[in-house]
């Protein structure tokens, strides 16, 4: 039992150790004068600064602003991506018509459009949401499309032999079958939406984690900047973990119902 626990947790134990090791190394390297703290600060300074920013409400304000844009862009990308993906997955011509645009979107540097968005939508939040929306759209659309397209042919055939109409097949076979692939798309979308928000904030915002990073970056205040960088990284991990968890839920649900 204990051995089993160790084997199961081996990854976690070693992973935690390596994280701690990294932090300790960072701290010691600076303390020992190997690295100039101006360049990278230290974990203890970052922690102290985090508490300060936490006390005066900066953390809450920045995280709030970033999450606000994140939720909007992710929500929009989910709705648009899934609807378009379903249409394209079900109707061949819709897919063909959308394909050139999706390819352009995939290979174009979305951030380059930010002057355009500022002209169309105004400075700040709307532009940030638009850019993050475009960042997140591709994987959600693409996974929904492939999920619907690669439906279980045998199941569809069986359903048809029982007299199921195309709509029934779509609702009963294609849709449930593509849920796990869609969830994977959402998981990828979450990471990209966050990237979109933060990158857009680097370029033009009045609040948010990306804004704080550029702001303190321009002032060359490494410690203050590090606080927001670390928060962004943690946020990315946490959000992706949540989606991975949901993904495993839907996956197990699918296996159960398949029996």
């Amino acid at each position: 039992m204990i051995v089993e626990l160790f084997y199961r947790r081996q990854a976690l134990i070693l992973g935690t150790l390596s994280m701690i090791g990294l932090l300790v190394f960072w701290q010691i390297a600076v303390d020992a004068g190997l690295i100039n703290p101006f360049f990278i600060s230290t974990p203890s300074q970052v922690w102290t600064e985090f508490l300060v920013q936490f006390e005066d409400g900066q953390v809450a304000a920045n995280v709030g602003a970033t999450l606000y844009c994140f939720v909007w862009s992710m929500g929009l990308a989910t709705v648009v991506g899934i609807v378009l993906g379903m249409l394209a997955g079900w109707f061949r011509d819709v897919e063909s018509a959308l394909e050139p645009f999706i390819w352009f979107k995939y290979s174009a540097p979305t951030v380059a459009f930010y002057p355009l968005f500022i002209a169309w939508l105004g400075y700040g939040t709307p532009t940030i949401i638009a850019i993050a929306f475009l960042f997140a759209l591709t994987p959600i659309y693409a996974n929904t499309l492939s999920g619907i397209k690669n439906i279980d042919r045998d199941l569809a055939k069986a359903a048809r032999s029982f007299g199921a109409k195309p709509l029934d097949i779509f609702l009963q076979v294609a849709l449930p079958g593509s849920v796990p692939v869609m969830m994977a798309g959402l998981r990828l979308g979450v990471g990209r939406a966050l990237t979109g928000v933060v990158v857009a904030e680097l370029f033009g915002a009045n609040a948010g984690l990306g804004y704080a990073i550029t702001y303190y970056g321009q002032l060359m205040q490494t410690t203050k900047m590090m606080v927001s960088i670390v928060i962004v990284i943690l946020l990315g991990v946490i959000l992706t973990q949540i989606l991975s968890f949901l993904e495993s839920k839907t996956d197990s649900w699918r296996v159960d119902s398949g029996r």
Partner: protein
Amino acid sequence: MAQIEIRDLGIDYRKPKSNEVFSAVDNVELSIEKGEFVTIVGSSGCGKSTLLMAVAGLVNLSRGSIKIDGKQVTGPGPDRAVVFQEASLLPWRSVRGNVKFGLEMQRWNGGDLNERAMQMIRLVGLSRFSDYHPHQLSGGMRQRVNIARALAVDPDVLLMDEPFGALDAQTREIMGTELLRIWERHKKTALFVTHDIDEAIFLADKIVVMGRNPGHIKEVIKVDLPRPRDEAILDSDDFHSLRKRLRAHLAEDMSSMQLVKEVA
């Protein structure tokens, strides 16, 4: 002395993620003469593969010993070659590349590798396909390549783990006859695991019947059918009685399996 001497063999597996041990094979005693064709039958999970892999030197022994020509087996060696059940051809190599693989690993220095490989490919009747890749071949052809690869390194002992297990009945029969044809030429000692009773009898000089929990040898049956053999032998009386005997053994095993299930 026999060529292969297995004495008091026992193999334990550690159950995954715990330190409990599970005995897969125990108390196995077996002697195999040079040039003998031995088949191993038994119900699924009774340790046939484990026994074969032990002779191949691919699993560690927990008890007892395996000797080949008087030498203790401690790992894989050039005196043995294995034909695996399926999916052991490297997909990125051509037929010839796959046949050459074993030669390369053993640093073959008996002449040109390509020539040696082609010779083996001809032997299994695949000359026309030597540049094909595995996914372009049928299941039967892939197993021919597998056999060619094992024969290429010129082993003293050929170890085969259900090489025809994934094939349909007809192909299986053809491959069996083919294997015998090749074997008659070289008379290499062969150890052949199978589920198929007819196959076991058709090929064998000696059939090893295994039982389960833990894997052990229940009986060793001599097969005195004349060689060379062909399909006609399948209808002979001797064959029928052997088949009956083996069936009874396996049925016994199946019912004990049922019992285990009910108790559990």
